[in-house]
């Protein structure tokens, strides 16, 4: 995504710094409260709640010219997990945001799993020093991002071949 938005070639060594400057660092959620005034009009008030964005899951930290035109950088997005306690009056939502696409999810009492299907048009080799998955051949893959639901922290990501059929295709083995 950063590569295609750049008009000049980036210094490979400094790209991670560039990404940090470009990527948003915080996400914000807006609380909306309404009160019925004495005049009968509804008063609406808003308040922002912000949370940091975790960039540790960024799969491609520096541009790879070989990927240009392959469409792989397209559609990169932020995925947020928003958790709101329903049994606590006035509880603030907690947010965890990572740089990743998202599709199907699976939620257990302890964990949440977010999947991202990806089709690799050509074999991909992770550039040296980049934080990304190892070599993958052409084909359909699914990246799985795991989160701890209690602490609302990102745990890990892994890639498996193929794609999930639907949300009921997933289960958790805690043993």
């Amino acid at each position, binding site marked *: *995504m*950063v590569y*295609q*938005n750049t008009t000049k070639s980036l210094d490979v060594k400094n790209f991670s710094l560039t990404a940090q400057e*470009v990527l*948003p660092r915080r*996400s*914000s*959620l*807006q*609380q*909306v*409260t*309404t009160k019925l005034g004495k005049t009968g009009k509804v008063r609406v008030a808003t308040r922002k709640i912000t949370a940091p964005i975790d960039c540790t899951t960024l799969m491609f930290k520096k541009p790879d010219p070989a990927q240009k035109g392959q469409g792989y*950088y*397209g*559609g*990169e*997005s*932020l*995925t*947020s*997990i*928003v*958790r*709101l*306690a*329903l*049994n606590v*009056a*006035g509880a603030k*939502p907690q*947010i965890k945001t990572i*740089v990743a*696409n*998202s*599709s*199907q*999810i699976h*939620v*257990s*009492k302890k964990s*949440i799993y*977010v999947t991202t299907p990806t089709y690799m048009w050509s074999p991909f080799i992770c550039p040296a020093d980049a934080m990304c998955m190892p070599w993958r051949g052409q084909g359909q893959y699914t990246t799985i991002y795991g989160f701890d*639901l209690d602490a609302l922290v990102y745990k890990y990501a892994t890639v498996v071949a193929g794609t999930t059929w639907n*949300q009921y295709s997933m289960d958790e083995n805690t043993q």
Partner: protein
Amino acid sequence: MLINGSQLILVGTKSQPYSQYSYERAFVYRDQQVLIAVYDISKATPKLLQAYTYDGWLQDSRIVDNQLVLVTSQSLNR
């Protein structure tokens, strides 16, 4: 729409008018927002308890142990 005991939770997505948003200049698309509204439906007249908006669109939602869990997504411009 989700039910948690005596609470009704409405979750949806709303779009911002195109004219209010510059797609070309923004790095993060903010054209859509997720709406969360929690109502107390224990009485005949529902009462709004909490309401939130969050940038992005809704991927999916769950209720686990009295917790509402949402997964939202927000596109990055490239």
